[in-house]
């Protein structure tokens, strides 16, 4: 079986992570590939996995009844996709569809949650990194909501 340790180690999300924690992550990791147009997740479905994107591009979409699917974010190389696996009820909030051929490392959410419960230092590292991603996402969303390129009132 392919050792995913080196790939995990070089992913920006995990930069600075200790070797022993990377070894723990490897136990929950698998290599995946998605073709253009594949759905990686569907709103409301169980969020069993999340992904470290190594290459490619994915669109996070929200279905609207009148305008069809709206793209609200794209995710690419070096990004992490999905945090719904972290919090109950562990279901995806959005559709995610590949825009380009995408290679990623899929992480089994339940497996990692269990490891985080057993090793709180690992849990803290993972939480710190996800919080950072969420804070960035929150301020980006605020900017998008402001519609800064729209006409001034």
């Amino acid at each position: 079986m392919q050792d995913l340790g080196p790939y995990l180690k070089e992913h920006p999300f995990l930069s600075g992570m200790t070797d022993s924690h990377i070894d723990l992550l490897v136990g929950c990791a698998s290599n995946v590939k998605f073709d253009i147009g594949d759905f990686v997740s569907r709103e409301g479905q169980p969020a069993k996995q999340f992904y470290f994107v190594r290459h490619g591009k994915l669109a996070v979409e929200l279905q609207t009844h009148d305008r069809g699917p709206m793209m609200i974010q794209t995710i690419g190389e070096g990004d992490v996709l999905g945090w719904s696996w972290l919090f109950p009820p562990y279901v995806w909030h959005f559709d995610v569809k590949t825009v380009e051929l995408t290679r990623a490392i899929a992480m089994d959410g339940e497996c990692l949650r269990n490891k985080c419960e057993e090793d709180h230092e690992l849990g803290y590292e993972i939480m710190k990194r996800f919080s950072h991603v969420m804070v960035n996402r929150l301020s980006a969303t605020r900017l998008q909501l402001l519609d800064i390129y729209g006409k001034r009132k």
Partner: protein
Amino acid sequence: MANASEILQPEALSNEMLPRLYTVNKLYKDTHDTFTMELVPADGGPSMSFLPGQFNMLYVFGVGEVPISISGDPDRAIPLVHTLREVGSVTSALRTLKAGDTVGVRGPYGTAWPVDQAVGHDLVLLAGGIGLAPLRPVLYSILFRRRKYGKVVLLFGTRSPGDILYKKELQKWRSRFDLDIHITVDRAIRPWRGNVGVVTSLIPRASFDPMHTTAMICGPEIMMRFSIMELTKRGVPEDHIWVSMERNMKCGCGFCGHCQCGPLFVCKDGPVFVYPRIKDLMNKYEI
């Protein structure tokens, strides 16, 4: 305090305020609410020379006058090019002009982007919406002397795929190996295959050497503030970051005080400022 030689006498003042007549040579739509105007001097004389980042006051007779950056190539004075977004009375009136119509032009005014100072550096140009227009002369200028610079990165954010300015030109530039162009939109629908997200999200991924980078930013002020935060997070020194400020203007050349921002007149001391000079004044309401 201004010294005696800087204080303009009434005659000089009236010259400064006197527009020169230009004829509309071409006017074309860029997107649903933006258009580009190419002007030539009505008297057939030479056009003005300008530096990237400078602006003109464009006057529609009987309607009013607005400050608009020059968006053309500094090495080609004719035609004189401006790109505008239609937002109100004057910009709408400019939109309705036809080839052969006349406008009044005063300028060029204001400070320029630090194109010479940045020689030897990597360049990161960050544009938001119509903010790409004042940065386009920088691109022309750099491409003319491409070897003098390190990496050149353009990060452009706009509202939707339909709002992308200069589409054809961007496409052409994208095919160059010595220019790294990333575009993102705030929202999109299929079949858009580019990036969706705010322009600041492009900064962590862009390839440049922060310590030896000059960044030039033009766009809505909020976008500029967040971009500065991301750039400094990546290690770009504050005094390598330049921004173009926008304030309401009347004279455009330092007489009326309409554009005053703290101790600075945006029309004369700016619009292009090195960030530390304007840091405490960004985010201030207009007077």
